């Protein structure tokens, strides 16, 4: 059975190595190139003063609070939108290509007809997706910590780690949701639409709700807010944020496996 599991997880993991390499390079380039400009902003008090004069809700909406500080700079340049968006997009595309995309192309039939429980087959693919997101989390964390050292950004390692891990868990949450949808239907467009819509709406809630006094208390009702609403670069993160993202991600994958076990497999 060990050989079977090695194939059930390792097969789809190996099949995604090009995508994994591409996302890794993108993360490293984004992080290093952004952090590389920190020395220019560190001494530019004029820019930071100008930014600080913007209305507080607007600063919050664009993640520009304290832009002249190391944490504010990293938040505004990377962790308010760009890095979580990369993780969310990677989660959607990894999950879709491992399940609905492959099934829609007719490439699952040969494998599903082998003596392996269907739920285990789906679970193996889900684990491969989460494993790639874990790899990307480590790559991003390594790139961030190394860049901070090289370009002199004085950041607390624990808070940086918390922020990057929460971004990775946001990607896992969205990937889990996509896996659940793919478990029910082999429609790649639907899977991607659901994944990207949830990520985008969730970002809008965190960014725009603070602009309305009526909606401001609800800014953390969506996954983006669970991940980054507490400003982990400054404050660190409570344990419930990890659980609220990671728990449902795993639960969604289980739901997907359950549904996949109970429906017709699509042929080419």
């Amino acid at each position, binding site marked *: 059975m060990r*050989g*079977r599991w*090695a*194939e*059930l997880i390792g*097969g789809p993991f190996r*099949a995604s190595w090009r995508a994994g390499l591409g996302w890794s390079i993108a993360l490293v380039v984004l992080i290093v190139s952004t952090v590389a400009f920190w020395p220019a902003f560190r001494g530019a008090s004029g820019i930071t003063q100008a930014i600080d004069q913007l209305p507080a809700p607007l600063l919050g909406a664009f993640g520009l609070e304290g832009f002249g500080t190391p944490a504010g700079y990293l938040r505004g340049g990377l962790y308010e939108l760009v890095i979580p968006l990369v993780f969310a997009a990677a989660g959607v595309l990894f999950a879709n290509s491992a399940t609905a995309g492959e099934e829609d*192309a*007719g*490439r699952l*039939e*040969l*494998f*599903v*007809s*082998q*003596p*392996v*429980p*269907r739920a285990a087959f789906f679970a193996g693919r889900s684990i491969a997706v989460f494993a790639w997101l874990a790899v990307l989390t480590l790559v991003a964390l390594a790139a961030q910590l190394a860049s901070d050292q090289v370009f002199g950004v004085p950041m607390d390692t624990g808070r940086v780690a918390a922020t990057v891990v929460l971004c990775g868990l946001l990607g896992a949450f969205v990937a889990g949701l996509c896996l659940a949808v793919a478990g029910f239907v082999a429609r790649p467009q639907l899977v991607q639409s659901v994944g990207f819509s949830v990520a985008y709406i969730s970002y809008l809630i965190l960014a725009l709700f603070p602009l309305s006094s009526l909606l401001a208390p609800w800014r953390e009702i969506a996954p983006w807010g669970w991940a980054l609403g507490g400003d982990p670069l400054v404050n660190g993160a409570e344990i419930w944020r990890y659980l609220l993202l990671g728990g449902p991600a795993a639960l969604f994958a289980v739901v997907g496996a359950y549904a996949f076990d*109970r*429906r*017709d*497999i699509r*042929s*080419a």
Partner: protein
Amino acid sequence: MASRATRAPGGQAIRIEGLVKDYGAVHAVRGIDLEVRRGEVFGFLGPNGAGKTTTIRCLLDLLRPTAGRLEVLGLDPRWDSLALRSRVAYMPGELRLPERMTGAGLVAAVSRLRGGLDTRRRDSLAARLDLDLSRRLRDLSSGNRRKVALLLAFVADAELLVLDEPTNGLDPLIQREFLALVREERERGRTIFLSSHVLSEVQRAADRVAVLRQGTLIAVGGVDELRRRARQRVEVWFDGPAPTAELAALPDLVDQHTEDHRFTALLAGSIEPLLAVLVRHHIVSLLVEEPDLEEAFIDLYEAAS
């Protein structure tokens, strides 16, 4: 070591009772009853869209039937699917393989999922099928990809081989090798369920066939039996003008044509009434052609429609 086939109990390899499969308003299979015996090569015939692949996918639990009861190797495909799939090898008709893998990589992956495959048999099959397993699947022609799928089916040492359109796109030499492999598997006691619309291939390989039309079975029987049921072509040369009036009175003789001394027709029943007419006349020659499976198939279709 005893093979799985020799350890299996006797009886039916496949039993289908009242199988129905609907896709929304589309009725793909409309109530099939069928039995396939252990150790036989069974041809499953029908044109595209007749419901062959849908039936096969139900047998392998890739599709869930709308109604009906299925039993494969004594197991229920829905509830004993894991045990069943370890005893069945399947070659899909619409073949989509992971393009970036090599043939050898795909065989290794399937081997891990099946808990091991015989590497000597793999190499022997690759040689017989003239297949280079070191090449990436995307670089192979459709025929060579089909050879990879054939190899995967035959290397599995399964009790039941379910092959959906296995020789589509294969050259005649490999088709011949395929038929040899089928015969060898039958001699080893394996059951082969062969879906095809290449009737000459089924005629050479199958013990019995079923003919499917628009989701219903229109005939099941031995290949020879089906051929006998089809209309025979009759050609008679008379010493003088053909006795058209007498011949026209024979109800089983259809599609009659007379040209001077030559008479042709299709015989749909017993030949005795025709012989009774012919003995009263001087005939130069009599030719009664036995139909091949293709003619039998077309006949069955025309009769059903």
